[in-house]
């Protein structure tokens, strides 16, 4: 059995999942910290 389609699928799944959770966490952090900074600047 040719293993390469399984290897490609495993790498694609891992890379996509890792990138997705990293991007989601980064965007959530930037958004929350920007909101906190904006509120703390208010008198």
């Amino acid at each position, binding site marked *: *059995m*040719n*293993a*390469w389609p*399984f*290897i490609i*699928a*495993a*790498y694609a*799944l*891992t*890379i996509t*999942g*890792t990138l997705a*959770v*990293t991007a989601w*966490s*980064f965007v*959530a*952090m930037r*958004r*929350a*910290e920007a*909101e*906190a900074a904006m*509120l*703390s600047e*208010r008198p």
Partner: protein
Amino acid sequence: MHVYANPTRFLKIARPLTAWLGWAGGATIAAALAWGLLLTPPERLQGESVRILYVHVPAAWLAMAGWSGIAAASLMQLVWRHPLAAIAARSIAVPGALFTAICLATGSLWGRPTWGTYWEWDGRMTSMLVLLFLYAGFIALAGAEKEKGGEGRITAIFGLVGAVNLPIIHYSVVWWNTLHQGQSISFVRGTSTIDPSMLWPLLVSALGFSLLFGAIVLMRMRAELARIKVEARLKRMAAS
């Protein structure tokens, strides 16, 4: 640990550390995966499918390390009432669940060309599936408890009780002689049955994913701390 109980002190360290862990982790993963995919030899019995292990093993390691982190944070929350412990446990849960799912999926993709099946109700695979359900339960429970304004004590107890599954996963290949192969690396004895040409990219890949996992957890902790700050500020503004 109590030194970092102060969120301000924690953030002072977490801010530069997030970027450092993120970039170092990303670069290490890229190098390790290119190494494993393009430069390592095929294994004598497994053939080319051995390359799946460079992503499967780090995912398995992080799935278990993630729950170990949840259990440690839960203990800190219950015993010492560490203010950041509950935030840390909740921040580990989502990436931990993701890497458990990746471990199960890549294991299935490795199993089909190697064993001839995607799935078998074997001790190791079943206990890993139980770990995924535990993560899902923890995420749901933490969300529900937070919504009700609780301190997260029930979630912390769940985090501690769930740790019972970790030795079951670890020793499953010893207790039950089923399809999943036995332990290849022993950190306690410092031994390995893997050839160095495959062992090194595997270790480098595990290091890279671990560094990135740390960055993801720090990002999620920082987001939650900022949200708590916003909520407190809005409450004060509404009261005045």
